[in-house]
């Protein structure tokens, strides 16, 4: 059974339907990319998984457990965390306090300390800036902090919503190589991107979302080679 599974999920904002029968499977250890243009419903999918909103129909299953109506704090405890769209740091808290908030659901002090060390190893920049107020970090540093903060929950599935958005190409490279590294260390990753090219290179598998509907799925390589994807998202 897949680690994370969405089955026929419909989600609404008021009367506007944002997701229509979305079915996604994420296997343990994978990097799964979710690509699609503006307003396709990628962020909505992640918000639904995290329990910030609940589907009107369909189910979300995690590790064999139905989490369709589970509250967000419990979902983090179970092992899903995310670095949300727009980073959403706590702007008036220090880098360290932001990281501690990431570990809010945990009580294992030694584990938290060692994960903090791991985050600083992935993002040495954060260690240099650890006492700085998050709102004053540069865009790239903020993205690193958002990812580090999500990692502090020690998730089984890490969800990243457009981690490369607005970053210089060289920083995008860094972010994607860190995604690989995080995955290699054993964390399953769900990667939402408009930068389809990069995302599909990193991903084992991908899903293409269009106006709330999954229109295509396949391995990263298949999708990269697919004509529709090339036309729509890779500008070829």
């Amino acid at each position, binding site marked *: 059974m897949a680690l994370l599974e969405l089955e026929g999920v419909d989600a609404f904002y008021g009367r506007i339907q944002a997701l229509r029968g979305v079915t996604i499977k994420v296997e343990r250890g994978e990097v799964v990319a979710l690509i699609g243009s503006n307003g396709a419903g990628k962020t909505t999918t992640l918000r639904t998984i*995290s*329990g*910030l909103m609940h589907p009107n129909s369909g189910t979300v299953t995690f590790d064999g457990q139905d989490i369709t109506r589970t*509250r*967000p*704090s419990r979902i*983090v*405890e179970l092992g899903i*965390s*995310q670095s*949300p769209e*727009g980073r*959403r*740091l*706590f*702007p*008036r*808290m220090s880098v360290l*306090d932001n990281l*501690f*908030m*990431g570990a*809010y*659901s945990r009580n294992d002090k030694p584990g938290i300390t060692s994960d903090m060390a791991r985050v600083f190893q992935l993002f040495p920049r954060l260690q240099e800036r650890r006492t700085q*107020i998050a*709102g*004053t970090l540069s865009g790239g540093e903020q993205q690193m902090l958002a990812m580090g*903060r*999500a990692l502090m*929950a020690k998730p089984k599935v890490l969800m990243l919503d457009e981690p490369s958005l607005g970053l210089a190409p060289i920083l995008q490279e860094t972010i994607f190589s860190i995604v690989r590294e995080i995955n290699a260390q054993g964390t399953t990753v769900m990667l939402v991107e408009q930068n389809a090219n990069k995302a599909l290179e990193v991903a084992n598998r991908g899903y293409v979302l269009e106006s709330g509907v999954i229109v295509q799925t396949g391995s990263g390589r298949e999708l990269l080679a697919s004509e529709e994807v090339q036309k729509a998202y890779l500008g070829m």
Partner: protein
Amino acid sequence: MSLPDYGFYILCGTAVILLAAQAVTHPTQFFQVFIFGLTQGAIYALVALGYTMVYGIIELINFAHGDVFTLGAYIGTTLLGFFAITEGTFTAINLIALIIVFPVVMLIMGGINITIERVAYRPLRNAPRLAPLITAIGMSFFLEGVMFLWRGPATVHFPDILPTQSWYVAGVFFGVRDIFVVVVGAVLVSLLAVFINQTKLGKAMRATAQDRDAAQLMGIDINRTIAATFFIGALLAGAGGIIWGLYYNTIYYQLGFRSGLIAFTAAVFGGIGNIPGAAIGGLVIGLTAAFSDSYIGSKWTQVVIFGILIGVLVFRPTGLLGMRVPEK
């Protein structure tokens, strides 16, 4: 800096210079008023913190907060009535009564405020902002109504059980009760600062105030942090109510209306949502009220205070300290 900013600094600067001139020419009177202002300020600070914390976390101006303060005083005087206290002097029983009544009233008020949040504000959390605001005004009338029915429209006596010693130092008169008010205020504000900045729940409360969705994504139960905010705001307001009673020995059911508005002004002055700002704002407004009472005339004090409220809202809505870091 914009023009209104200059205006703000020029006004504050002028006030400070005028006061400094008074301090030099009539030091005795100045320090006498200063001490009174400080005691007022300590009480307003305790109440202002509740306004600012609640606004910070759910963007609600909790109009009922001033009445929570008053209700604290009412419950305080009632509980003190169960002890064999002696008024006008200080006995061991007075001390014991104080030591017991303070925390008990604070906890009761905390419980009441959590209940208020649960029944009156939480169901409206995703409603348009005006809805909880109107409910808060309703809750204010409700609490005043409860006190009215309970103890009537007249003023209620609050026992005078603090030590009565007082001193003249260089012509300035002050008593144990002045020191008591300022010290208790300072201790409570310091405890709050430690709680907010050092503890996990305190940090989670700040995180919820800064970004509610992000806080949920960290696994923070925002119902819990919001309830904690109301609880702590009420602990401070309850303490403020007892302190007020011990200082003036007279309370009445509408006390929270006026002092609540003044404390709210203090919160706005310090930057609504800003915790250190509310503490400083409380002191500034307390001192302003005292100086206005004696240098301008007490009939003008309300005009001065609410003039400040309007001035800050119009020209500097982020308050004295403002928000030094962009919100999002």
